[in-house]
């Protein structure tokens, strides 16, 4: 909850090591980043994006990076909070324009089916409910990652889902039937899945489970995310005039100019804020995580990156 002592002033080793808690394995990485995750969706709100950001942040902290999360306030939860392993969360007191906790969902009664509404389920009961079925129908109109379809596929169900947001990237084509977000398209997709099920062309639930379980591990996701950050770091930072040129050329003649105008206004607003509050009067935050982190342990300097990848035990 607060800065205690001089933990933030430790000199950072170039190869660093952080562990979840003493006695467990820790991971070392050579390049450490300062990462800020910005999202409208975070705990105490529950969902796929919230879980994804939290788990990914924890894995990145374990890999020696400094991570903070910026989100909006949720009722009384505003200000700065610390979560597990010193993950710092800024709950900004911003007005919410719409309800963050509910995704717009398409409800449609399919007359051939008998529907039983189970309501909210305990996480431990999800598997027992899912294995009772053969097909999982997801009718989201908006979706970011959709953890539910991964859970369904992991339980061996054939997934039929609307083709929105990040859903097409979550599962391979063999495990999902993608439909347009319309009743007609969903009915066709469902009929296709039922036909595949009856004709026996679907893989067995065991096979589906074995395929899906290899897809997502948080450590793997963290490593892939790291690679993305490293690629981004290699790119040149464009000057303001080049950014404006790119906005105008890439976004169309009318929209591009509108975006460029908004970008100029944002830039001027930033200059005004810097004049009101100069950088010289802003205190540099004490690192909770990362190489200088007050919450994290350090390991001795290691020359080779290969050695950094090895797992070492801490006291």
């Amino acid at each position, binding site marked *: 909850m607060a*800065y205690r002592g001089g933990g933030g002033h430790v000199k950072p080793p170039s190869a660093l090591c952080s562990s979840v808690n003493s006695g467990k394995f820790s991971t070392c990485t050579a390049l450490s980043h300062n990462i800020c995750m910005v999202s409208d969706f975070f705990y105490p709100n529950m969902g796929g994006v919230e879980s994804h950001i939290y788990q990914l942040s924890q894995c990145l902290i374990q890999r020696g990076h400094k991570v903070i999360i910026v989100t909006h306030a949720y009722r009384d939860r505003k200000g700065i909070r610390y979560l597990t392993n010193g993950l710092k969360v800024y709950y900004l007191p911003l007005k919410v324009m719409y309800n963050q906790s509910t995704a717009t969902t398409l409800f449609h009664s399919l007359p051939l089916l008998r529907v039983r509404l189970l309501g909210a389920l305990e996480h431990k009961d999800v598997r027992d409910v899912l294995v009772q079925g053969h097909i999982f129908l997801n009718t989201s109109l908006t979706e970011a990652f959709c953890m539910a379809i991964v859970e369904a596929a992991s339980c061996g169900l054939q997934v039929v889902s609307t083709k929105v947001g990040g859903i097409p990237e979550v599962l391979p084509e063999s495990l999902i039937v993608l439909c347009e977000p319309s009743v007609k398209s969903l009915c066709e997709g469902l009929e296709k899945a039922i036909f595949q099920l009856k004709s026996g062309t679907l893989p067995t639930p065991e096979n589906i489970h074995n395929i899906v379980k290899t897809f997502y591990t948080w450590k793997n996701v963290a490593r892939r995310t790291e690679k993305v950050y490293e690629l981004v770091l290699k790119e040149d930072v464009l000057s303001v005039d080049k950014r404006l040129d790119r906005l105008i050329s890439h976004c169309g003649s009318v929209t591009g100019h509108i975006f460029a105008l908004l970008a100029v206004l944002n830039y001027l607003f930033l200059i005004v804020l810097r004049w009101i509050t100069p950088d010289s009067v802003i205190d540099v935050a004490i690192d909770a995580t990362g190489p200088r982190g007050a919450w994290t342990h350090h390991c001795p300097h290691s020359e080779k990156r290969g050695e950094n990848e090895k797992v070492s035990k801490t006291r």
Partner: protein
Amino acid sequence: MEDKRIFSDICGGRLALQCRSYSPFCREFCVSCPRLSLRSLTAVTCTVWLAAYGLFALCENSMILSAAIFITLLGLLGYLHFVKIDQETLLIIDSLGIQMTSSYASGKENTTFIEMGKVKDIVINEAIYMQKVIYYLCILLKDPLEPHNISQVVPVFQSAKPRLDCLIEVYKSCQEVLAHQKATSTRP
């Protein structure tokens, strides 16, 4: 032993931190803000009077000018008596408690005392203040029913709003006193 150092507040203004050590476990920290500047007082007075003169030119009612003078004087007195804090003091005594005093520009003083048995810890915390994140020193009070829980957070130096370097000085000194207090209270 007395030590006076200059720091700055969150807006970049000058602050003076005076540390007095009456004994190893009785310390006083006094944060002094700059007094009301003649420049800002003149600027506010001129603005009010110019606005009043503009209204007088429109309405041609001399009562407006009289009211402007009256409002300026009342406003100044109210500001000095209820708003402008010249000095904030934190006195920490090992076995007794913590006393916080705010001295207003008019001479009025506000004092709060917290007995040491109620104090769980003193920490530096972060807060979102307007468009920026600031640090503040606060006293955590024990919950009477659940001693492991925190019942209240009492901010210190609320008016002066010193920056982190100043807060760390006070924090370290307070922790020395608290550590000694905890050691003596747990000793059989």
